[in-house]
């Protein structure tokens, strides 16, 4: 049964979060953008309190057994879209585990989930993060060189990670953790990759650098160095068996499963920025007496009307792809193709929408008086992180063609 009726839990949540976005995020957007490494404690503390009150806990959906259809990922996507409508950089400062918790949720044992995730529900706000990228390993995740060597009851990690979103907040500002992807067997490529939880305060893990970025400046992007960093043996995510078998792709597949789940959520964030942009463009045009005449044939539309309709086509279709991908996740249907499609489309849509919007509104949009130029800067990363648009096209292409990664490079 095809249905586009917004479920009421989502509708209610959107209203609530729209208020948060308008009152807690937009008023500080410009300030946070211009004070790149300032920590937005007001927002963080507020969200922590709100999430504890609703026992939302972390950003990874933990669906309790209950009656009725599953909505966890759909709720998350809508939450992320609305918060990103507010401020995409601030959204990434939302306490809860982020990608780190998502990795624990996707690959951890019940004991690990308990041990690592309960900190998000305690008195103080806590953030989590994930560290995959290295200077020489971006899209080619299987060429990471960070090693994990077994030493009795411990693992010893050595390596350098870059572009860790919320690394500083997770390891220094709060008592969180970083999920580090390391290899237990450098010679075996993907098959040796495993996720390891490194908690804040562990000797040997250091945030060495904070990047200065084009956009999403409220979100810290850290380099994290591991130098003889010792963690308990039980901090390898997944069962101990995973540690024993050297030649298994379970670890890598675990990463990919995490990404399938989180990919549409990143798309959702992109769509929040896109929606903010389109709404503001229409509002500014309306102030000038320009409205869009949707019933007209293209030949009769002004150029501006055509631009706006094109933006709205991208906006709506990209959002519906996200919705479909997360709906499938909630139905426990495999959604790798849809997740990647949503990322291809969303990254492309938010980039084009924001770039066109600035062009369309000329000097007004180029000025820092409005947030439009900021959204243009915030938008770009969405076609890059969590799988570039090119990698996601590759994933989609392999699926539709039935090709392995060897057959289509």
């Amino acid at each position: 049964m095809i249905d586009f009726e917004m479920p009421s839990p989502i509708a209610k949540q959107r209203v609530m979060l729209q208020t948060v976005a308008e009152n807690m995020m937009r008023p500080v957007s410009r300030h946070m953008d211009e004070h790149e490494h300032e920590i937005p404690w007001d927002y963080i503390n507020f969200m922590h309190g709100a999430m504890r009150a609703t026992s939302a806990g972390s950003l990874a959906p933990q669906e309790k057994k209950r009656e009725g259809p599953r909505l966890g990922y759909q709720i998350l996507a809508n939450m992320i879209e609305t918060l990103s409508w507010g401020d995409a950089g601030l959204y990434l400062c939302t306490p809860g585990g982020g990608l780190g918790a998502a990795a624990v949720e996707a690959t951890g044992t019940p004991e690990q989930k308990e041990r690592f995730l309960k900190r998000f529900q305690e008195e103080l706000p806590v953030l989590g993060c994930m560290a995959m990228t290295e200077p020489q390993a971006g899209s080619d995740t299987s060429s990471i060189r960070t090693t994990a060597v077994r030493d009795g009851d411990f693992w010893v990690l050595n390596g350098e990670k870059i572009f860790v979103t919320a690394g500083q907040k997770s390891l220094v500002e709060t008592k969180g953790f970083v999920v580090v992807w390391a290899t237990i067997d450098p010679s075996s490529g993907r098959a040796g990759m495993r996720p390891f939880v490194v908690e804040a305060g562990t000797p040997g893990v250091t945030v060495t650098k904070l990047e200065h970025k084009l956009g999403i400046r409220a979100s810290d992007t850290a380099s994290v160095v591991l130098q003889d960093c010792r963690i308990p043996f039980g901090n390898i995510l997944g069962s101990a068996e995973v540690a024993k078998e050297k030649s298994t792709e379970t670890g890598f597949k675990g990463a990919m499963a995490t990404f399938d789940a989180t990919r549409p959520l990143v798309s959702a964030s992109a769509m929040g920025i896109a929606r903010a942009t389109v709404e503001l463009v229409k509002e500014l045009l309306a102030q000038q007496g320009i409205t869009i005449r949707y019933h007209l044939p293209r030949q009769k539309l002004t150029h501006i009307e055509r631009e706006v309709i094109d933006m709205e086509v991208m906006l709506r279709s990209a959002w519906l792809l996200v919705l479909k991908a997360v709906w499938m996740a909630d139905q426990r249907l495999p959604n790798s193709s849809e997740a990647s499609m949503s990322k291809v489309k969303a990254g492309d849509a938010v980039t084009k929408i924001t770039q066109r919007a600035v062009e369309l509104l000329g000097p007004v949009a180029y000025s820092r008086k409005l947030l439009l130029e900021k959204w243009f800067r915030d938008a770009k990363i969405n076609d890059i992180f969590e799988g570039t648009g090119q990698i996601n096209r590759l994933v989609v292409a392999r699926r539709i063609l039935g090709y392995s990664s060897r057959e289509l490079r």
Partner: protein
Amino acid sequence: MYSFEPSEEQRMLIDAIHKFAAKDLREAAHEADESGAFSEALIGKGWELGVVQASIPENLGGFGEHSAVTGVLAGEELAWGDLAGAMHILAPGLLAFPVLAAGTDEQKQKILPPLLEGAYRAATAAWVEPFFDFDPSELRTTARKKGDAYILDGHKCFVPLADRAEHLLVFAAFDGRTQAFIVPRTTAGVTVLEREGNLGLRALPTFEVKFEGCPLPAAARLGGEAGFDPLLLLNVTRVALAGMAVGMSRAAFEYALAYAKDRVQFGVPIAQKQAVAFMLAEMATEIDATRMLVWEAAWTLDKGLEATHAAALAKTGADDMTMMVTDRAVQILGGHGYIREHPVELWMRNGRGFPMFTGLAMV
């Protein structure tokens, strides 16, 4: 609740249509495009699938609840077979759906049962006019009141099956807005001109039709004295066309994909080259994205909500997506794509017409 899966019943309908589309429509499509028509037998067989009939209530001669969502699912599948064939088979709906949506009770009782019960009977609608800036909402064909009757004057083009349809639903400007009139083909002043030659839809007989002082009784006006909201039917036709566009584009995409996996150059199938693989990935993504817009617009129509925004997005998206996909399909086949032996050039010719096809599909 959100849900993005056709119902079981809809799935069965889609499967039945697909079999017909693959085995009958597709097989005959090339020859039909070359010769100018599908056989009456094939059209009759397509009619028996019951797509139009299933979307009209029993008491009016159909056998189902009206559903635009079901209509776009069916339209996608039939157009996947062949767009011209789909439009030919569904042509009775060009009259039936507007009458269902906006007709008076008398009009529904008079027009629908004979149209729906039994064998295929051609009907059609005349909306498009031969001007570059044709605007469905600002027509040059006019109707004016004369006593109790109306007089129709104007010139239409792209009228499917005008030479054989018993009735034409003619859209005309009345009192400053678009209205419609049920016109028997034999009405005085109606002249069906020679069959058109078009860029695409060559398997669908279409005609220019002149209306010169055609006298019409009051009962001919759709919706009677009150008329109807023209935006409603504009939205409906936009959604219907967008649904078919998705189907035809899907056909082009699948064909190009299969070709790319088969065609070896530089020692490997060209599908293993990123340039081609990425084209296909984008085609697939845009088709899926557009389909969602179509579904949402159709759902909005079924809910009786204001659908102008959703229909505009679906139609605009579909128009652009179809041109991109069909163009790329030709490109992927390279030189072979240019030759009429492969269907991709046909799909590209058909595909270019979607922005112009107002009124050639309804749900």
